[in-house]
C-alpha cells in the first residue's frame, strides 16, 4: 500500500466498500410522478453476499424501487447508492457493478444463445477471446452449452430465463438485481433458479436482490423488505418478522362474524379483526384458545383454524390489509 501513493482522483473514484459493510444503501427514497407517490421515504441496506427480497403486492412500489436501483429512473428525492455509486449522479459507474434480470424477456429471439451473450458482452466492454471463453463458461453454468448455436426463439420458457440470467451475470457483477424472476416458470424451473441464486451468493459472494409478490419465494430470502403503498412496512429475516406476531394466528368462520368478533373482543380482551368475512386474531397458545372460544359461543362457529404465522400474517399485522385484496385483481403480467 505504501509503495505507491495513489492520486487523489483514484482514491475518490474507488467505491467505499471496505469501510461501509453495505453493498446497497437506500436512504429516504421518495418517488412521485403524475401526482402519484410510488415511494414514500423508503430506507434500507443490503449486505455483501446476501439474498435480499423486496416483497409487496403489485403497486406497492417495488418495481419503482427496482427501476431506481437499476438506473432506469431518477428518484425525485433521497438517494440510492450501490457499491459506493449514487444512482442519480453516477449511473455509468453503477451500471458496471450490477447485473439486471428483468421480468419481461430482454433477449433477442432472432439471435442464438451465443449471439445474445456476445452482444451483451460488447455492451460491457468485453470482446475477443476472453469474451468467447466467458460466454462458454456461463452457458455451461446455466446448463445450455450444447444449445449455444440455436436461436433463442426455439427455447422453452425456463431455458430463456436461464439465458436472461446468463446475460445478467456475464460481466461478473457484484450485485444482481432480479425483477420477479420466476414469472411464468414451472415449479421445477423455479426451484432450479433459486438454487442457482444461492450458489451465486455462497460461491461468488454476489449480493442478490429479488422483487417478488410470492410469499413462498420471500421465505427463501436471507432478509426481506416488505413494501406497502410506497412505504417500508417491515424489514428483517423471515423468521424475525414472523416471530414478532407472537404466538399463533386464529381464523374463525361464523354465521355472523361482525357481532361474534365484538363479543370475542369483550370476552377475551384481545384484538380482533374481520377480513373477508373471517374473524382473525393473534394469540399465544392458540390450541387452548380454540377450545375456550368454541365452548364460549357454542353453535355460532362454522369453522376454526389455528396456524403458525406466515409472512402474509406479518403483512396483515403491519398494514391491516390482506396482501392479495387489491393485487389479485390487477395482475396482468403473471399468468
Amino acid at each position, binding site marked *: 500500500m505504501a509503495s505507491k501513493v495513489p492520486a487523489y482522483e483514484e482514491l475518490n473514484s474507488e467505491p467505499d*466498500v471496505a469501510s461501509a459493510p453495505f453493498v446497497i444503501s437506500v436512504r429516504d427514497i421518495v418517488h412521485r410522478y403524475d401526482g402519484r407517490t410510488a415511494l414514500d421515504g423508503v430506507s434500507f441496506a443490503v449486505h455483501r453476499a446476501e439474498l435480499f427480497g423486496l416483497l409487496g403486492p403489485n403497486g406497492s412500489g417495488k418495481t419503482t424501487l427496482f427501476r431506481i436501483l437499476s438506473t432506469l*429512473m431518477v428518484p425525485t428525492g433521497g438517494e440510492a447508492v450501490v457499491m459506493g455509486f449514487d444512482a442519480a449522479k453516477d449511473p*455509468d459507474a453503477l451500471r458496471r457493478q450490477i447485473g439486471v434480470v*428483468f421480468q419481461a424477456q430482454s433477449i433477442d429471439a432472432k439471435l442464438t444463445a451465443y449471439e445474445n451473450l456476445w452482444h451483451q458482452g*460488447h455492451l460491457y*466492454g468485453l470482446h475477443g477471446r476472453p469474451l468467447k471463453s*466467458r460466454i462458454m463458461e456461463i452457458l455451461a453454468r446455466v446448463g445450455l452449452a450444447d444449445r449455444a448455436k440455436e436461436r433463442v426463439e426455439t427455447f422453452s420458457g425456463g431455458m430463456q430465463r436461464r439465458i436472461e440470467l446468463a446475460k445478467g451475470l456475464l460481466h461478473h457483477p457484484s450485485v444482481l438485481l432480479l425483477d420477479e424472476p420466476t414469472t411464468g416458470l414451472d415449479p421445477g424451473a423455479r426451484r432450479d433458479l433459486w438454487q442457482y441464486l444461492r450458489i451465486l451468493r455462497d460461491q461468488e459472494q454476489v449480493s442478490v436482490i429479488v422483487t417478488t409478490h410470492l410469499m413462498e419465494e420471500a421465505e427463501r430470502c436471507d432478509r426481506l423488505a416488505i413494501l406497502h403503498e410506497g412505504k417500508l412496512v417491515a424489514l428483517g429475516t423471515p423468521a424475525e418478522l414472523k416471530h414478532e406476531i407472537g404466538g399463533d394466528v386464529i381464523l374463525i368462520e361464523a354465521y355472523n362474524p361482525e357481532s361474534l368478533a365484538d363479543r370475542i373482543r369483550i370476552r377475551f380482551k384481545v384484538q380482533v379483526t374481520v377480513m373477508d368475512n373471517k374473524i382473525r386474531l393473534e394469540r399465544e397458545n392458540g390450541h387452548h384458545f380454540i377450545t375456550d372460544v368454541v365452548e364460549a359461543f357454542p353453535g355460532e362457529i362454522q369453522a376454526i383454524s389455528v396456524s403458525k404465522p406466515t409472512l402474509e400474517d406479518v403483512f396483515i399485522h403491519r398494514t391491516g390489509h390482506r396482501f392479495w385484496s387489491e393485487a389479485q385483481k390487477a395482475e396482468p403480467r403473471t399468468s
Partner: protein
Amino acid sequence: MATQTTTMPGQITPATNGLLLPAFTLWWREIVRFYRQRSRVIGVIASPVLFWLVIGSGFGTSFRSGGAAGQEHYLDYFYPGALIMIVLFTSIFTMMSVIEDRKEGFLLSVLVAPVPRSSIVLGKVLGGTTLSTIQGLIFLVFAPLVGVHLSASDFLLVALTVFLVSFSLTALGFAIAWPMDSTQAFHAIINLFLIPLWLLSGALFPLAGASGWIRLLMRINPLTYGVEALRNLLHPASPAVFPLPASMATLVLFSLFMFSLAFVMVNRRTTKPAA
C-alpha cells in the same frame, strides 16, 4: 481498496467503454435481425424493382409521348425523386425497431449497460442507414434504363449522397420513435411528415417553377438538397438550382442536426418510468 478484486475471483474488469464497440454490436444486431427475417429481405429488394416496373411501363411512357417538360423526359426528371422516396421510407421505417425493442424488453437491457447513450443512437441509426443505403443502391442499378451512365467517382458521390440522406432520415426516425410506445402512433406521425416532405422536395415538380410560399417551403426542406445533389450527379446537363458542394454541405449539416436531436432524446433521464 483492493476489496473488490480480491473478493471477485475472475472478475473481468472491462476496459473503458468506448463509443465504437457498443455501437458496432448494435449495428451488427440490426443487420443480423434483418437478414433473418426473409420477408424484410424480399421487401427491400422487390420494392425498387416493382417501382421500376410500374413507372417504367405505364407512367413513364405516357409522359414521354406528351413531352410536356420540353425536351426533358419526365421519367428522367422523376428518377432522383424516386430514389429519394425509396430511401426516405426505408430509413424512417427501419426505426420502428426502436419501438419493438422497447416493447420486447430488449432496450431495457441496453439502457442498464454502461454504454454511452450516443453509441446507442449511433449503432441503431447506422444499422438503419446501412439497410436503406443498400436499397437505394439497388434502385441505382436501373439508372442505365434512363440513360444514366455513371463514372466510378460519380457513383461514389451518389452513394455518399444516398448515405447522407439515409443517415439523417434514420436519425429523424429514431428521434420520433424513441418516446413512442406503439407502432400505430409512429405510423400516424410519420405519414403526417413523410408525404409532404417528399412532395416538397423537388421530386415531382422543380423548385424553379414553384410559386412563392411553396418555394420557401421547398428551400427549407432538407430533402430538396438530396434531390438536387442527385439530379446534379445523374443529369449533369440539366440546370441545377444549387451547386453540388452547397447541397452536400447542407446534407452533412442536416445529418449532424438530426443525430444531435436523436442524441438529446436518448439522454433525457427522467423521473418517469423509462420503458
